[in-house]
């Protein structure tokens, strides 16, 4: 069990959401307000432990009087705003954005992508068979995790988690520009030659499965990955005195990956290399 601190009380502001007057604490994003009101807005680049880069644009909503749509994940609610989440215009943009994403990247391991594509009637195929795709081979250069950038939507979450928002290692960044922009190490070097410390916090935040445990990647390749059969057990890391929480994902009595609860006020889902990857000794049944 984790404890979430309440923080200092904030002033409430009032605005209209889909015609309904609602009140939220000052500083709340429109997305928080929507979730509070039970509305399900699709999101990809937004993450519960990071400041969103609002780059994916699937969460756009219509703000009365604004020339363009607003990203719900980042726009703060203002008193008197009139916000509509389900207008034709907003739905159109979400649909096209999903089409653009699905036509250029592999969303097969992105949770909920298929569901949203159906809901918004997106047809990623309509750009034709020759539509440019990322088309990258998975980068397998170490035994701990795999980078499959064909699945990357460039949400910047891994960059932020590796860099200034959490880990402060700055091993990866966005290189290049436009459609050629890619997540990359310095000089595009293999991970083993980079500054990476294998904390795996980037995997923790990746919304598409572009970053995954080598174990998960191999099992998916072999067709043996089966989330329905997995159990999750949250426990305490035994390595050092920090006491991070680990969630062990177990399939057929083997640990297949390790995550960490995001609502933990100390670690916010971050771990170090030992907690994240050092689990083999548990299953040395020799």
């Amino acid at each position, binding site marked *: 069990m984790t404890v979430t601190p309440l923080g200092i009380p904030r002033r409430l502001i009032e605005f209209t959401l889909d015609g309904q007057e609602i009140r939220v604490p000052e500083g709340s994003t429109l997305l928080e307000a929507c979730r509070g009101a039970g509305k399900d807005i699709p999101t990809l680049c937004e993450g519960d432990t990071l400041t969103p880069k609002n780059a994916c644009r699937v969460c756009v909503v219509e703000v009365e009087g604004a020339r363009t749509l607003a990203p719900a994940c980042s726009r703060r609610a203002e008193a008197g705003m009139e916000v509509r989440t389900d207008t034709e215009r907003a739905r159109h943009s979400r649909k096209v954005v999903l089409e653009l994403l699905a036509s250029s990247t592999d969303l097969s391991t992105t949770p909920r992508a298929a569901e949203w594509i159906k809901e918004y009637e997106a047809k990623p195929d309509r750009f034709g068979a020759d539509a440019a795709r990322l088309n990258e081979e998975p980068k397998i250069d170490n035994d701990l995790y795999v980078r499959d950038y064909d699945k990357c939507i460039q949400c910047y979450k891994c960059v932020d988690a590796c860099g200034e928002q959490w880990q*402060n290692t*700055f091993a990866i960044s966005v290189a*290049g520009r436009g459609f050629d922009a890619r997540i990359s190490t310095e000089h595009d070097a293999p991970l083993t030659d*980079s500054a990476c410390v294998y904390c795996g916090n980037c995997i923790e935040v990746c919304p598409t499965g572009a970053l995954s445990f080598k174990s998960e990647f191999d099992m998916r390749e072999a067709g043996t990955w089966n989330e329905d059969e997995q159990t999750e057990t949250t426990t305490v890391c035994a390595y050092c005195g920090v006491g991070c929480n680990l969630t062990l994902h177990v399939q057929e009595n083997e640990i297949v990956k390790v995550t960490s609860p995001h609502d933990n006020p100390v670690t916010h889902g971050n771990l170090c290399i030992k907690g994240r990857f050092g689990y083999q000794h548990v299953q040395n049944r020799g």
Partner: protein
Amino acid sequence: MDLHFGDSKPTDDERAAVDALLGPPASAWEGADDRTDADLRWARGGREARERRDQLLPGLHAINDRVGWISEGALDYLCRRLTVPPAEAYGVATFYAMFAVKPRPAKVVHVCTDLACATRGARAVCAGLEERLGAAGSASGGVVWQESPCLGLCERAPAALVIQAGQPASPGRLRPRTPAPQSPAGLEFATAVVAPATPEAVVLAASAPEAATAEPPATMAVPQAGQQGLTLLKRVGVVDPASLDDYRAYGGYTALRHAFDLGPAGTIREVTDSGLVGRGGAAFPTGRKWQATASQPAHPHYVVCNADESEPGTFKDRVVMEGDPYALIEAMTIAGYATGAHLGYLYIRGEYPRAVRRLEHAISEARARGFLGDDVLGQGYAFDIEIRRGAGAYICGEETALFNSIEGYRGEPRSKPPFPVEKGLFGKPTAANNVETLVNVLPILTHGAEAFRASETKLFCVSGNVTRPGIYELPFGATLGELLDLAGRPETLKAVLLGGAAGGFVRPDEMDIPLTFEGTRAAGTTLGSGVVLAFDGTVPLPRLLLRIAEFFRDESCGQCVPCRVGTVRQEEALHRILDRTGAEAATDIALLREVGQAMKDASICGLGQTAWNAVESAIDRLGAYK
């Protein structure tokens, strides 16, 4: 942070280039080769070095200027000096079109294939170069040539720019603090502009850029030069751009004196009363922007002059900077005084070597004579200007992308709010204005807001199929037809692109459109950056549209999905319908509309939001693909 560096070492040349900018390293912590005993006992660099991150872009330029490309060793050395993680610096270096992270020859030729040049023979130039120098991008004989977006020389299209890496030509320019070892190729850094370009002239200039024929004076771009009634252009071609005294003889620095008389609040009031709105395209009231910046409690405040003019067809800022550089310095000083800033950044696009040289000279002159520095004009007000050179990225004209670029980050736009007046450069209140907006401040303060209102003018960049291309200054309210008549209308005018690639096409029968912000808006188009590109019957419209789409695909920063992927899908669709019309094009046009709408609605910044405007207007107003 964990700074990790590979084994690559810089060459002597690369090290010298960086040290010339930053001074020699103080310790092994900052990249010196030898560890001293003191280095083993305490760490230096760190925070202090990190605060110089804004030297990253100048550092990349220093290496690129010296060697022609940025090697691993050079980048790592620069990172050590500035305590910047190499992955981030690599991300920055690969963002800009003028830098390379793979070896290439010292001489790079950029050949413009953009709108104005395309109508005036850019294809033939490229074909000729292919014959003489080989395919674009392939190095031969110490030269590589490549296609380039608009070089801002549209009045002299087709245009080419040669950049030769090497030792700094005049030691003063890069302020070397250590004796620089001779560059291996023995080359000196040099640039040459060839416009109008022929393949022969380009090859010649590439073989010895330092000896290439000088560019024509800035007046050549001002067909009205010397005429009565000019306000913003009145000194261009008349005043000696290298002489501060000459500038003063033509009325220079009276506006600043007036500003000092009025005080900061009075200056802002005058600018507000004048009704001046930003000339960069957004038409935001300048006085309000200054007021909002001045009143912010956070300090320091900054002023930024956006001279990253990269809109295809735009070259007015270049002409003003080259022809009347002190005017811009004076205007920036006034902006600084009014908004309470003591430092101004002048961000000039990297493709404008002559404008950079002239302003560098003018700034050092102004500094030496007390027009910049600790005590401007003896008024107890401190103000100075730093020049920043862009490195080939249209998106850096977006003000928040420009801030990131100056700060040493990738030139990606930030999402607004917060707005720059509140959190701009280095997170501080910032007033950002473009060149044309700023120089308008001079007549406002010299003659007063009322006189200004009565005779407010606008600059237009006219190019394409006209007989007298160049910059025109016209009172607000002149019509498109009047402007084109001045510039020499082509016999068979087919279309006019108003406002540049982000603007829209209008038909030959729409010549009555008044050239005002309201007038163009009422006509369903935009004044944008003041571009007027005329096309006659010989120009194949579908090719032109494809070039516009290519431009946006190349220049998208890649941050948000609608723009990063949308611009690619737009270009693909335009490729498919290049030779098609009617029913055959209908599905793709429908697709374009849907993608275009999402780009307009959901992109983060103006680039994505306008990337479909020109194509849309060509379909709707010109009946392209009918």
